[in-house]
């Protein structure tokens, strides 16, 4: 397991001076210095935590509360008891908003959400993404050295880098790294390296790009764009390595990087813990302001539940009884979500322990916790629960339960976990993402309106201050 570390932003700056290689990196250091002194507004940070197989409604409402209502509900969470799925967020209850009643009928998929979940546009994994996802949008608006870090949980699978949930825009997927040790390498350099890995790699990439540059002059047709893209990728990696080299020289990465276990984690529970540690370190070191952690990378087949249950994920989602645990599948899913929320809460705690400005890093962060396929496998998208933790520097209303009009209903004539049904004129999940953009200071009138009207995709007054 990763070693949990405590550190302050101020302590990270010890040994770094603007003169010792910091010049290249000075905007970030200056920002951090100033933030430590309370002089500058710290960056806003966003964590998206997706899990597969749906988010059953009973796991997203305080214990004993009734679901469904004809009108919008906004109630305080003070004193409420959180369900097991998200009980780990209890220490942050005053910064939490539970949102029920958003709909995703226009972008729901069968067994998995793929790009739909974070874009609000119907997209299947077999095809390139059809629109920008919210993490891509925020990554562009608030870039760090890494505009966005995508970390996948593919328990029991050999998956390394893959695509499936996040996109810069139409046809431009963002890679999700499912192996924590490889994510570590990308972010913090090789383990046990004695030299400055990043600078050496930067020099090598510069040399390699000469071949590609020569190729550019030889290519005529549409593939010229591919070569330019390749060259651009090499340049971007080289530039990033240059910036990382500065951090490496200053010892920042060494201090902030988590300690990797001797054997790379493989079970779902261990990979989740490792990726959350990597995410925390990436945020605290300022390498990025946007992290997406996606369990299953947008699909129920993208991960198993090793460490909790050996049963196939598909059957679990249908409620099949786990023969080893002797509990129904939906109980296994509850434990799966419980594990994720516990790890996410650990990540938030690290941010809370890191002073920034007059408070902590958590003050300027929001975590979005939801499933990539609404409330259940085989979803029609008629209800999509969300949990938000963090008020993003006071720009989001928190400590509340918000519910848009819903009625009790069933699916195919069966009640599945007291399934509720939203009205067709309820806000879409796009509206929640638009609200985040507004709260972050990068407002849009609507987020990816198209399949549903713009009026269902605009910012929500119940969420934004």
């Amino acid at each position, binding site marked *: 397991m990763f070693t949990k570390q405590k550190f302050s932003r101020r302590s990270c700056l010890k040994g770094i001076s603007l003169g010792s290689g910091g010049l290249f990196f000075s905007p970030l250091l200056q920002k951090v210095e100033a933030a430590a002194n309370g002089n500058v507004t710290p960056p806003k940070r966003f964590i998206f935590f997706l899990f597969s197989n749906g988010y059953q409604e009973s796991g997203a409402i305080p214990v004993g509360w009734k679901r469904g209502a004809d009108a919008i509900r906004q109630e305080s969470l003070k004193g409420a008891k959180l369900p097991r799925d998200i009980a780990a967020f209890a220490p942050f209850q005053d910064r939490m908003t539970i949102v029920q009643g958003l709909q995703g009928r226009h972008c729901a998929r069968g067994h998995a959400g793929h790009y739909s979940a974070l874009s609000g546009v119907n997209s299947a994994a077999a095809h390139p993404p059809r629109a920008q996802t919210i993490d891509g949008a925020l990554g562009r608006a608030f870039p760090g050295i890494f505009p966005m870090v995508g970390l996948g949980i593919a328990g029991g699978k050999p998956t390394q880098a893959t695509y499936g949930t996040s996109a810069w825009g139409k046809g431009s997927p963002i890679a999700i790294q499912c192996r924590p040790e490889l994510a570590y390498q990308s972010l913090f350099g090789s383990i046990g390296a004695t030299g400055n890995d990043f600078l050496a790699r930067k020099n090598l990439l510069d040399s*390699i790009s000469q*071949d590609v540059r020569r190729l550019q002059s*030889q290519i005529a047709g549409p593939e010229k764009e591919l070569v330019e893209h390749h060259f651009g*990728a090499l340049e971007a990696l080289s530039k990033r390595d240059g910036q990382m080299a500065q951090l490496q020289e200053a010892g920042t990465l060494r201090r902030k990087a988590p300690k990797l276990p001797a054997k790379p984690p493989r079970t779902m529970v261990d990979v989740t813990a490792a990726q959350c540690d990597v995410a925390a370190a990436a945020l605290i070191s300022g390498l990025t302001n946007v992290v997406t952690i996606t369990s299953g990378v947008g699909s129920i087949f993208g991960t198993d539940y090793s460490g909790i249950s050996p049963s196939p994920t598909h059957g679990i989602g249908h409620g099949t009884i786990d023969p080893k645990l002797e509990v129904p599948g939906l109980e296994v899913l509850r434990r799966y979500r419980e594990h994720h929320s516990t790890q996410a809460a650990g990540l938030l705690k690290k941010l809370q322990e890191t002073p920034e400005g007059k408070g902590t890093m958590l003050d300027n962060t929001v975590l979005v916790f939801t499933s990539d396929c609404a409330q259940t496998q085989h979803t029609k998208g008629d209800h999509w629960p969300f949990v938000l933790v963090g008020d993003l520097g006071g720009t989001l209303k928190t400590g509340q339960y918000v519910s848009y009009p819903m009625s009790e209903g069933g699916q195919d004539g069966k009640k599945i976990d007291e399934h509720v049904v939203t009205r067709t004129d309820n806000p879409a999940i796009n509206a929640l993402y638009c609200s985040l953009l507004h709260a972050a200071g990068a407002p849009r009138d609507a987020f990816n309106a198209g399949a549903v009207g713009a009026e269902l995709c605009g910012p929500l007054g119940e969420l934004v201050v």
Partner: protein
Amino acid sequence: MKRINVLQRGISFAWIAAAVTFAAEGRAADSAAERKAMHAVMKEKCFSCHGEKKQKGKLRLDTVSMTPQSATDLAVWRRVYEQIMDEEMPPEDEAQFSTAEREKTLAWLKATLEAHSDLNLTPSAGNYVDHEALFSGAPAGDPATPARVWRLAPQAYEAFMFRLNQELQLHVDQRAIMAPWAGSNYSTADRIDQAEIEAHLRICKLMLSRMMPLVKNNKFRVRSLHPVYKAGKAATAPQIRAAVKDTCQKILRQAPDATEMQEYSQLLTNDLKTYEPSRAIERFLTKVLFHPTVLYRVETPIAGSQRSIMPPRQLARAIAYSLTYSEPDEGLRKAVAAGKLSTKQDVRREVQRLVTATTPYGQDVKLTADQRAKLDALNREYWQIKTPEARKEANYQQKLGKILGKQAGRWIQLQRAGYRSTDGEHINLAALLRPRVMTFFQSYFGYRKSPFKCVVTVKELNVIPAGNPEWKSWWFANDTDRLVGWVLESDKEVLRTLLTTRKTFVIARYTGNARQGLKRHTGQIHEMQKWKHFQTALHHYEVSMTPEQWLLGKEEPVEMPKGRRMGILTHPSWLVSKSGNFDNDAIHRGKWIHENLLGGRVPDVPITVDAKLPDEPHNTLRERMRVTRAEQCIKCHNRMDALGLTFEQFDHFGRNRSAEIVVDKEKTAQMKKRGPDTPRIMTTKPFDTSGHVYYSGDKKLDGPVKDVFELIEKLAQSERVEQVFVRHVFRHFMGRNETLADGPTLVAAHKAYRENGGSFNALLVSLLTSDSFLYRNLPTSEP
């Protein structure tokens, strides 16, 4: 700066999109004089900010061809049109167009975009090129493929790494050197991004970790690297040059050109001065492993030419990677070395060899008639033996040795490598020796892409016989693979046979490697599990077969009942690939036929449309598809629905049915009153298989059809369908869409196919020896 309102802009953009999407036939005849005049206007108004000295907005216009040569050029002119139309350009503080200039410029741009819309070369846009114009035989320019790169397929990348692993004796676990990307069939489709570069770097690092100890100990196959390692900073220029040459030849299988020699030598020399020798050599080897040919097919005209046949090395790779996922075989390499791969005749010789090969290069076994007869007798005797123990006692190999003499060793090697089954040649040669041919049929028909079939729907429809725990779509996809291979082996009327045959294999033995197939099946007769798979398949196909027929003797296809199946479009694999989890997908079945057999076009679903059928499990699919009859939908849906609904006699598991199973709404509602968890009550409704062919482009095809059999018969007899098939073959093996200049290539290819009795080999040879395949060009300069 004036701005037109959003509506006007939207309309103008939509107009452009429509004009580009539904292109007119042929090209507009804009004259050289018109282009020259337009160039002069652009020079005056645009090039000062978007030319050689300045590229504002990172846009340079003076180098973009006035006659668009590519989709990139087209995109640039489209953007220019929008900017001028919106009065965004020229900027307010710069010289403006006069009214006449603006009108003339917009008119020219509009005509150019229309005339060159066939350059919209995204894979889904291939059918936009006018079919009649293509097959008219009228010349439309010199056919060639633009100079390009094409990212290697993952199989090709892995084959390269496995080859290095083996030849250099690195002993790397092959699972660690899997390609960091998936594949596609279009050269424009796949890019190398940061994630891919990082993954390739990791693989290089792994390979280097095995190479460097060998270099240090002078055991590395690139012998000349050890002296450089030993010498370090003191390495001489000749030593370094020798190391560079040797490394490139061993790793890349090509000598470095002058620029590469200089660059690599320079890198190694400088690094030896900066780093420890092992680090310097690692960096050099990494650079070699990042050579563009490791990641791409690189295809350009001969240096200094505007248009020429590819240079021999590139040509060898293009031929090899068109048919296989391997680097050029020994035969191609020998031809290049001997200077015998530069003319069309040379190419024809090599392509013919590869297309008809039954063994890898140089491994042929030639049998006399007597040897053949004795081998057949031995095999017949061998296949009567039922148990593995008895087979071992029969001492097959000793008897084989006596019959084949000196060739026995090679014969056994071929069997072990999977190119021969024990009883001869009853294997899927296409899959083994020409895998890209198999890939073509798999991607063309799409039968390997199956949606996940949920256990709920499997149980509800009693898909599997009692006691069998599972149903898998890939069983049937494997059978279709084997059928395709079998049809290709005979190479007669390939398309027509695939569309109309009632033959099928049942849980086929030899879908790929013969040895693996044999091993799997000889054990299976004793395993009840696999026997149950076989029973499920028999049930699906409605054929009967004994286990002995299934496992022993020559593998032959069986015939499905007449009136129940016809061709690949009624195979379970194809039907399942165009279905959902709970029902048929008549729309996509129809879309496939419209696009892949009729050469038609169906625009993408508009993003504003929520394209879902109503959730009405009590209605038939045809009843639920009433929503596509709406006025705003019907024009596109008529091209699809009326074709796809003819398949309604099959369910979404690809089984024949006598009626469509739907929910009995009333009885289910009554049951629900007793308790919410009671199951649904099902009933049946009759299905309707009538359909219609609209907008085929062939009057003989258009019109009503009563069922799928009548539809398929018409399609199989149609010359247009054959021509559309040829177009798709072209796209797969060229890695791009056809342009009007490729018309003569397509005409010749179809002629070769038809005149050789529907021979796919003849079609391939024609395409791979055409100018469209052989020639690469660079754009001409303005105007």
